[in-house]
């Protein structure tokens, strides 16, 4: 065990909010069902690499993110 993993989501008017915590020395693959990276905000800003976001790719109707450790709050608009 490398630590506690947390995952939570909440529907809001124009989409949903997804919160997660990835333990230290661990990485996570996050699948978000949205068709564009433009629909995702982290800390109220557009996604950018570094600061925990290792990479992302689009696959079908999902955006797949590789996350390093830490806490994240994503806002996804429909």
């Amino acid at each position, binding site marked *: 065990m490398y*630590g506690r993993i947390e995952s939570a989501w909440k529907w809001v008017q124009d989409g949903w909010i997804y919160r997660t915590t990835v333990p230290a*020395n661990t990485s996570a693959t996050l699948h978000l069902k949205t068709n564009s990276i433009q629909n995702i905000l982290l800390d109220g800003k557009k996604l950018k690499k570094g*600061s925990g976001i290792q990479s992302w790719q689009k696959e079908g109707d999902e955006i797949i993110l590789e996350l390093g*450790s*830490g806490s994240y709050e994503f806002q996804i608009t429909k």
Partner: protein
Amino acid sequence: MRISKPSYRHFLMALMFFFNAVICFSQTTIKNLQVDYQTEFLGSDDITPHFSWQMEGTPNNRGLMQTAYQIVVADEDENMMWDSKKTSGSVSLGIPYEGKKLQPTTKYTFQITVWDQKDAPITNSSWFETGLLDADPDPDKKMMWAQGY
């Protein structure tokens, strides 16, 4: 507003900011130091104990990774039993002991040092104590089944 000359008070405030910054940057810890998946294992009968630990950072510290580790084991008289040396890797579970032969009923301390992705070291220590280290329940061959005639 009158701008005063740097004073003792300003110096003190600067010092407080400095210490605050130091505290903020040093909140990565090594916790749950374990031997054979037990904390402060008393009575270990394993001649090859396995070491584990967890790295923990503040939630806003994203991308915290272990890049190397070092395990140092010493006995009560501070004799070095094993020094793994700085070893690359992110593994922090079930690392086998590779040092000198452990003695029975002896307390050993172990220190874990972990380096993060910026090569900053974090360290912590704990202990374990060996049991009789003999798998034979009757080492002296003096035991007998309880019996009655």
